[in-house]
């Protein structure tokens, strides 16, 4: 399904849940897996110093440094790599999100897998760290390929997924998210749940509306679902349609829990928010933060067609 997968990691326990998914998914799909770690910010000019991304310490770099970090990464993922001999390790100094995006473009990867990068020892800190511009958000916002964010242990293997929820706001990016989710659901053979929430949050003009206006919006959304998505299902018929009203991220999470979702697929760029300003508090970030299952962010039409990358061998 995915020819090339890029697993962007801190090579620490915070990415263990994502590592499990990355190694398992690439092994099952016979994908080329690249494990990538950006470990420091370069200082000005061409100095040999860099600042450690985690601690902020100034560290003197030398030509052996990258080699040492690579060795450490290989040791950390030694067990998983044994079952996946083709895995490639890479590390460098740089701005993490820039380097991850650069590598994804250069290697033409089909999927980026990341953790949400919170430190487990700081319980509760995710409310600041995960909201205020993390690497994950910057990558999810700008990547041209789908980005899978795994912040909780994923207890179901990708190929055994039974329910995929695609949450749409009918934006262009949501259409790509739908196409990707439909293709994956068709490939795996699972149920696709199409979901839309009529936004009744306080910022929205509908807040003051009466019930009739809300119901009109729901009917309008139903028509859009039929025209945009049902009409484009092709031969795939294992799907449901649900429309709710409320606060989008709350309703998406509630629906994902009710429908026992194994994966939530969403567009990062919402219709209402300029993509450049969508860094803080967009629906997808709120969902990523609290979702019990992995969340996949899709923004571009690139790589949404998952079928040409080779059929899965029958033995799997």
């Amino acid at each position, binding site marked *: 399904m995915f020819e090339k997968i890029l697993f962007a990691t801190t090579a620490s326990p915070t990415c263990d849940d994502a590592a499990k998914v990355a190694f398992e998914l690439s092994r099952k799909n016979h994908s080329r897996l690249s494990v990538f770690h950006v470990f420091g*910010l370069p200082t000005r000019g061409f100095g040999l110093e860099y600042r450690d991304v985690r601690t*902020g310490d100034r560290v003197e770099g030398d030509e052996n440094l990258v080699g040492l970090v690579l060795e450490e990464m290989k040791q950390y993922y030694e067990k998983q790599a044994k079952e996946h001999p083709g895995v490639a390790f890479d590390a460098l100094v740089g701005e993490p999100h820039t380097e991850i995006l650069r590598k994804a473009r250069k290697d033409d990867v089909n999927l980026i897998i990341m953790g949400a990068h919170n430190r*487990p020892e700081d319980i509760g*800190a995710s409310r600041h760290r995960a909201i205020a511009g993390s690497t994950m958000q910057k990558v999810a916002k700008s990547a041209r390929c789908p980005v899978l964010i795994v912040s909780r242990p994923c207890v179901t293997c990708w190929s055994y997924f039974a329910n995929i929820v695609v949450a749409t706001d009918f934006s262009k990016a949501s259409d790509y998210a739908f196409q990707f989710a439909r293709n994956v659901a068709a490939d795996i053979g699972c149920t696709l749940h199409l979901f839309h929430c009529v936004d009744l949050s306080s910022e929205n003009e509908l807040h003051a509306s009466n019930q009739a206006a809300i119901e009109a919006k729901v009917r309008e959304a139903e028509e859009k679902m039929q025209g945009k998505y049902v009409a484009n299902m092709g031969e795939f018929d294992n799907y449901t349609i649900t429309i709710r009203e409320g606060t989008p991220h*709350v309703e998406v*999470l509630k629906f*994902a829990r009710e429908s*026992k979702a*194994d994966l939530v697929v969403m567009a990062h760029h919402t219709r209402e928010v300029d993509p450049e300003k969508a860094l803080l508090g967009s629906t997808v970030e709120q969902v990523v933060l*609290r979702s019990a299952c992995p969340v996949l962010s899709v923004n571009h039409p690139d790589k949404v067609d998952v079928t040409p990358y080779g059929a899965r061998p029958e033995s799997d």
Partner: protein
Amino acid sequence: MVELQPDGRLMERGRPIGDDPLPYLSNSVQLNPGFTLRSFFLLLGRHPELARVNRFFPGMLERYGSWPERDCRPAGLDWLQLTRTVEMVGFPGKPRLDIYHAFHGVAAGEALEIKSYQLEHLLDVPVRLGGLRHVVFGDKVNVFVFETTYTLFDVLEGIGWQLAFHGTPTECSLRR
């Protein structure tokens, strides 16, 4: 000062408050002995206005009706604790000061992340108010712990934030 009773009553000077709890949001809180997470839901049930503090509360209250009425306490988890953290962050990004509440478990004296527990399995675990952690510049671990007080709003908002994470499906692990 307001007191939260195990049966969810909100008391001031030994007497239950009336129908309007909102003026008490800024009062400091004392959790009386026997206060559990179930007591927290009973409080929200008695005062529906308080459930508006967090968008996930109404959904949880709906589910609460279908949960067992007793013996909802996982082995090994001693109590649940609300703590406040004041953290100076110097890097990466611009230096800043984060202040937040965390609601976590305590098992054998160690803090424990609870979001992987089903919410209905935690209902009869005692709830306590913990101290304030002052963390200076993250990884160069300088952590100080102080006594502190919590307002009614702190309790509602802090516990509500954490409970919004709960919803790990049980079916997944069965399918594996």
